[in-house]
């Protein structure tokens, strides 16, 4: 009961402040514990221009326990799982306080996009990419924003899912490196699978030392 009243107030507060660019909606009027939140990718980041959807589940003892949030929109970010959308953010875990709101949480997610914390990653592969090759990371993040979040006049929402995806851009993997290894007789699919698993993005000049040996070792297993 108290939970319902508070959630209703929170929905109202978000509606009363359209300037914030945050949206909240209840999926099903009969169940206010399941919502979707929306916010814009922050400007000056690879996520700029994208619109992000977040799945929100409100626990029975809200606001004494934090809301459960995960990204529905795929995001390439060290603190967000590239597979499941799970989020690593302290205020949604042990730093939660009952004076925080859904709106405040969504704004925190927005600022998490601005300031990743790669030393405390949710997605170790993405974090590795971020730390070792910032430019390559930005490109991949930008590409994902375009394909999945509708940035840059890219497809948006559900339409994005049916759009063919460039696997090289998607995983930030160097096209030439894959070609070089394909010439050794491995299939592209297998090379990309192993590169994703090992976090190796490229081989040869400019790559991490020993990357090629490690990759071949894995491929020959």
């Amino acid at each position, binding site marked *: 009961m108290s939970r319902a*009243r*508070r959630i209703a107030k*929170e929905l109202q507060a978000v509606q009363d402040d359209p300037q914030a660019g945050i949206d909240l909606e209840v999926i099903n009027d009969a169940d206010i514990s399941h919502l979707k939140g929306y916010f814009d990718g922050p400007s000056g980041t690879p996520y700029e221009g994208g619109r992000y959807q977040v799945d929100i589940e409100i626990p029975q003892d809200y*606001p*004494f326990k934090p809301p459960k949030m995960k990204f529905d929109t795929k995001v390439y970010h060290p603190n967000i799982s590239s597979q499941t959308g799970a989020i690593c953010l302290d205020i949604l875990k*042990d730093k*939660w*306080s*009952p*004076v925080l709101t859904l709106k405040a949480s969504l704004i925190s997610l927005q600022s998490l996009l601005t300031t990743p914390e790669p030393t405390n990653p949710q997605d170790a592969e993405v974090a590795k990419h971020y730390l070792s090759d910032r430019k390559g990371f930005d490109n991949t993040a930008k590409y994902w924003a375009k394909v999945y979040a509708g940035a840059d006049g890219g497809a948006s929402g559900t339409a994005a899912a049916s759009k063919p995806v460039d696997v090289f851009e998607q995983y930030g993997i160097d096209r030439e490196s894959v070609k070089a290894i394909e010439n050794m007789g491995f299939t592209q699919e297998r090379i990309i699978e192993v590169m994703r698993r090992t976090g190796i993005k490229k081989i040869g000049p400019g790559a991490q030392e020993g990357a090629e040996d490690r990759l071949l070792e894995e491929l020959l297993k």
Partner: protein
Amino acid sequence: MKVTIDKWIGVSTWHWNHAQDEVCGICRVAFDGTCPTCKYPGDDCPLIIGECKHAFHMHCLLKWLTTESSKGLCPMCRRRFKTATE
């Protein structure tokens, strides 16, 4: 004309001294209203004010402090919550 008063109903207003138009940060209900578990505002549902000057409905704050995740901290400033002594 002589008037006989046979019934008198007192009506008065009251409010807590602490920031009347503010809401309790935990339940988002005005301090002059009740916490979600109480029916009658006033002495039945008092406010509690910390040394840090942050105020809440007492029932709301106690509910928070009994959760493990609170670690005894004020929800506003995350300092250890200690009731202010006047």
